[in-house]
């Protein structure tokens, strides 16, 4: 696109352009009415006018919001591109040579590095679509004496105050952490497995939420949690149906900003992609290279 056309396109796509043009239209309409009925304005025409004005204003506000969301979504394509580039480059770096890396310690160090970069980008995606600061965390699941626990592996923020002074060991499947337990449940409504709440304190008041982190609302008040897992073919409906690596969580302090629609599908897609990357890095898949 030419520079002039590009500039024009950017101006017209800006929500402020719509707001400005809306105000101008309304002002012109008012002037027209004043000019025509100024001397003796009728009651019906006044009610009609103000009613129309209210509807029009609402329409414009909504339209501006949608435009703003649309611009944010367009900007995300670049971030998705970066995420894929991180995965591709990391896998090539480790395996596409005559002496591929096979040492688990080195592979895990590289996995952590790549996932840190990915978490930062996922946080950028959600901060962009919610217009609020979001935090992204990967939790890994471990097993001790037949009990499952989730531990923080990587966050989108380095040296996060959530991890001090003590790191929390979250019990999974015990009812102590609703987010993880609900996220693991299979759903019948066609949505990916997840836990979602746009208002955790309200859910807690209804006794619908528990969290081993005391005073969690100092850090976040709404969240989406999805499992990072793959299906073990042939083991459906058995306890080992899934190969569960952990959880991908996004949260924010703002209420009612995250949604259960495209936000959920985006984070679930990113978790599935993450599962494949981690499985490749951990030698779970057999990949033949020429």
């Amino acid at each position: 696109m030419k520079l002039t056309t590009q500039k024009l396109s950017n101006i017209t796509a800006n929500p402020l352009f719509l707001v400005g043009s809306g105000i101008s239209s309304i002002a012109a309409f008012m002037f027209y009415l004043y000019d025509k009925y100024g001397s003796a304005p009728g009651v019906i025409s006044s009610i009609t006018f103000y009613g129309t004005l209210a509807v029009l204003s609402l329409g414009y506000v909504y339209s501006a919001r949608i435009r703003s969301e649309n611009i944010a979504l367009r900007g995300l394509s670049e971030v998705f591109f970066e995420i894929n580039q991180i995965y591709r480059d990391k896998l090539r770096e480790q395996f596409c040579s005559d002496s591929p890396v096979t040492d688990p310690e080195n592979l895990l160090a590289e996995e952590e590095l790549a996932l840190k970069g990915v978490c930062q980008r996922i946080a950028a995606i959600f901060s962009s679509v919610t217009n609020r600061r979001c935090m992204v965390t990967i939790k890994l699941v471990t097993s001790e004496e037949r009990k499952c626990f989730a531990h923080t592996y990587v966050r989108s923020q380095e040296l996060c105050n959530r991890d001090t002074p003590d790191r929390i060991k979250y019990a999974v499947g015990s009812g102590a952490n609703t987010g993880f337990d609900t996220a693991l449940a299979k759903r019948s409504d066609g949505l990916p497995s997840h836990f979602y709440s746009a208002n955790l304190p309200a859910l807690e008041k209804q006794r619908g939420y528990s969290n081993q982190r005391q005073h969690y609302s100092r850090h976040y008040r709404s969240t989406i949690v999805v499992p990072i897992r793959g299906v073990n073919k042939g083991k459906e409906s058995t306890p080992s149906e899934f190969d569960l690596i952990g959880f991908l969580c996004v949260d924010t302090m703002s209420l009612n900003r995250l949604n259960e629609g495209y936000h959920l599908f985006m984070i679930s897609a990113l978790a599935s992609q993450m599962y494949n990357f981690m499985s490749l890095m951990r030698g779970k898949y057999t990949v033949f290279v020429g």
Partner: protein
Amino acid sequence: MDMTLLQRTIKQFISSQHTDIDSVELLHLADIIASISKNSNEWNAAATLLAADHERNPGKRMAFRCYPTQELKSCINEVPRMSTLEWNTRALARIYGAEFEEVLNHQPREAHK
């Protein structure tokens, strides 16, 4: 002898057809498979030939006759085999140290290659 990736793919394809290999028309792929080398472009060429054949005869049920192919190197398979839980514990032990090393020592392990 280990099956090659191509052989396994073909086997999976045949089993997905839910039929016996002898009861369907055999498509001889000797020329294609013989031309497959380490060069990925030739893999692409082979895939294109197969796709073209499928387009010409979309209803045709195919089975493949396997020929020995070049040795392919399975690099990721050389990574030690561990369960997901063991990988997770190792990953956390790298970061948090002693606490998880203890857990790792008590975890049942998959047979290492």
